[in-house]
């Protein structure tokens, strides 16, 4: 391992959780020792466990409840270069009224957009916004040079502060995978701490911080596990699998391994961290497998928007079709749900 000895003893940002857990050792070396001391992950065993959880059979009343739960956990997302205020308005309308034919359909948890679309989203939400209504819809913005994260720290912080100033309730940041893979854990850590600080609003409250690990680029489950611990130690409120721009995006084994970290963190500190699989979850069947995995790994108290989200765009319509089927007893077709 090639570690610059000068960096080795360098102090990392004194984030509260890290101070508690690492004790006096808030240095690059201390952080590294901690992360490397976490038990490893056996890939075969992890995938077997995920596959076993995926065989749970959720039928009838359980399925009906699961479908409504899924909708209430969705971060309805549009992250295209071609996004316009019009497209965002359309997305928001869908978020507010997922199924025009059935007003009892729950609303989604949030809409997720690029930072410059936050004002458009807020405007479209109006009174449906989380700030105004009790269980309204939140606005999440991706930030920190999403999706690659390849920009200098000041640019990332400006990106974040800009979105928060525009009124974003939640920030989905990306970690510097390059730095992580090069073993510069301290740098990744410091950036998360800095972004968290940039989430601070003038009134002292913080925008919710979701930390995207981009697990498809971290490649191994051991890396995913370390990155999860690192993101939590640095102050992340949520850990999120992917940007959706890299394949593979969310997989069940990856999400399971992140849930195990969250469960262990809860056991260690009593604090609850959220998890957000994003990208690649397109069918109700898939999404139900995630619910089962959450409930049987961390417990069903995690199945609420403050602690679990699906980052998805096409998932919603499949869930709506399944929901219609459950209620009416027959399948309809893609023309019976709105495209956005």
């Amino acid at each position: 391992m090639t570690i610059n000895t000068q960096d080795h003893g360098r102090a990392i940002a004194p984030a509260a959780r890290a101070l508690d857990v690492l004790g006096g050792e808030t240095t690059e070396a201390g952080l590294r020792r901690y992360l490397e001391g976490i038990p490893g992950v056996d890939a075969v065993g992890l995938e077997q466990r995920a596959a076993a959880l995926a065989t749970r059979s959720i039928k009838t009343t359980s399925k009906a409840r699961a479908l409504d739960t899924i909708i209430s956990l969705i971060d309805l997302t549009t992250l295209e270069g071609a996004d316009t205020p019009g497209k965002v308005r359309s997305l928001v309308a869908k978020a507010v009224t997922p199924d025009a034919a059935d007003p009892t359909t729950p609303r989604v948890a949030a809409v997720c957009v690029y930072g410059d679309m936050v004002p458009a989203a807020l405007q479209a939400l109006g009174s449906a916004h989380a700030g105004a209504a009790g269980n309204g819809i939140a606005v999440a913005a991706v930030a920190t040079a999403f999706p690659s994260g390849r920009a200098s720290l000041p640019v990332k912080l400006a990106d974040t502060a800009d979105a928060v100033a525009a009124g974003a309730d939640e920030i989905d940041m990306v970690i510097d995978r390059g730095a992580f893979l090069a073993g510069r854990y301290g740098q990744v850590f410091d950036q998360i701490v800095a972004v968290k600080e940039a989430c601070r609003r003038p009134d002292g409250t913080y925008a919710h911080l979701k930390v995207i690990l981009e697990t498809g680029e971290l490649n191994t489950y051991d890396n995913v596990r370390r990155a999860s611990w690192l993101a939590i130690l640095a102050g992340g409120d949520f850990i999120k699998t992917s940007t959706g721009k890299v394949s593979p995006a969310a997989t069940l084994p990856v999400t399971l391994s992140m849930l195990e970290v969250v469960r262990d963190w809860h056991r260690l500190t009593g604090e609850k961290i959220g998890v957000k699989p994003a990208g690649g979850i397109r069918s109700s069947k898939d999404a139900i497998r995630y619910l089962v995995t959450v409930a049987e790994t961390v417990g069903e108290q995690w199945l609420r928007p403050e602690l679990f989200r699906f980052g998805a765009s096409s998932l919603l319509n499949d869930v709506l079709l399944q929901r219609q089927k459950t209620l009416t007893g027959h399948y309809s077709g893609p023309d019976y749900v709105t495209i956005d």
Partner: protein
Amino acid sequence: MSFLEYAPAPESKAILNLKSEYGLFIDGEFVDGRGEAFATISPADEQRIATISTADAADVDDAVAAARRAYENVWSRMSGRDRGKYLYRIARLVQERSRELAVAESLDNGKPIKESRDVDVPLVAAWFFYYAGWADKLDHAGLGPAPRSLGVAGQVIPWNFPLLMLSWKIAPALAAGNTVVLKPAETTSLTALLFAEIVQQADLPAGVVNIVTGAGETGRTLVEHPGIDKVAFTGSTAVGRQIARSVAGTHKKLTLELGGKAANIVFDDAPIDQAIEGIVNGIFFNQGHVCCAGSRLLVQESIHDEVIERLKSRLSTLRLGDPLDKNTDIGAINSAEQLQRIRELTAVGEAEGAERWSADCVIPENGFWFAPTIFTNVSTSHRIARDEIFGPVLSVLTFRTPAEAIAKANNTPYGLSAGIWSDKGSRILAVADKLRAGVIWANTFNRFDPASPFGGYKESGYGREGGRHGLAAYLAPAASSAPRAEAAPSAGRVAAKPPRSSRRSTKGTDK
């Protein structure tokens, strides 16, 4: 309402087309047994499923005679290639009827449908496919050119994996050119009889596979029958001993696959979450009715408390109940007798001072059930650390160094299997090298593959099943005294059938 209260998702029994009474399968036909018939029940609700015949000595005579005729006239003369074709056909039929077989197995045995569907039945098909491939390649089985089949094999199998154990016995025997008389366990004959239907469907020459049902006495008659050349037994060490005694001094070749008390060794650097899964899979798979179950957990002292805490919280998520429900993790104990034994041994465990913890499961009113249980503070001298419980009961012991782990793991009269959990490859290899057990799993447990030999050290038996080694149990080198029967390129399926028994079953085919 809790998300975790999954709505019932039972696999439908409608796929089954069971008869109300079953005869014996002799010479390609179902015939009535001369012994006293008995009921087979579902251990989950104690409801009768069907009436099963008992084969008496005369029936066993008939079966052995039929197997002998089929051996002399057809099967030993058939080319390996043609034998392979039959085995492939059986394998495909098992796949085609897999759902039916899985439902029948769960109904009769009490194991969860997810296991019979995802483990037992797929492995049965895999076993037939694998040995089908060997049938025309026996020259390469490691016994020199042109090895010779043995003749008629008498096979007695247990109730824990009824159909899977049948395939472990029948597939290699047939591939090697032997014919068989098989006795399934008294409480789990159903799938063997469905298998007999598959044998008919596959148009296997009459008498190549014969199935005689009944209790221990039928098994004894079969094993002691002078007309058989090979005995293969899977079951308890006590019965295995009797068989070894009765076979001693005869020409019969013998393989025994008996009990076990496997050590599952967890080192402090183990991938902890997967190790917990492996411990659960090691002892609670099939309600612990597994001869190679990891029933002794040896955990490094430094991580003992953490492992136990995690294990308890994981066990609390197991679902005990209707074996046919697709979400059931723990099914029913196979019989009242076995439940009684588990209760006795766990009571002894408590009396000897081990600390008992059972998962908080709702136990159904009818049927035979036992909640997943772990014992901590177990010493090597406790009976629950020595005796095979054959139930969902884990005994937890600790160790400090690899040397102590090896010593404790080997300190048992058994030696069927063992497990090692560590992130360090060199340690796994070094420890595995010193463990006296037939199968050693590293960072996994209870995984089976037809290409991998399976068998025991010491009181766990002798001989190997599975893989190339499994063929050696059913073959002799060509140089042996008896002249080789196999010669004709193919007598094929047109081979003459002896006149059919006039004793054809009178049993109805209605449900």
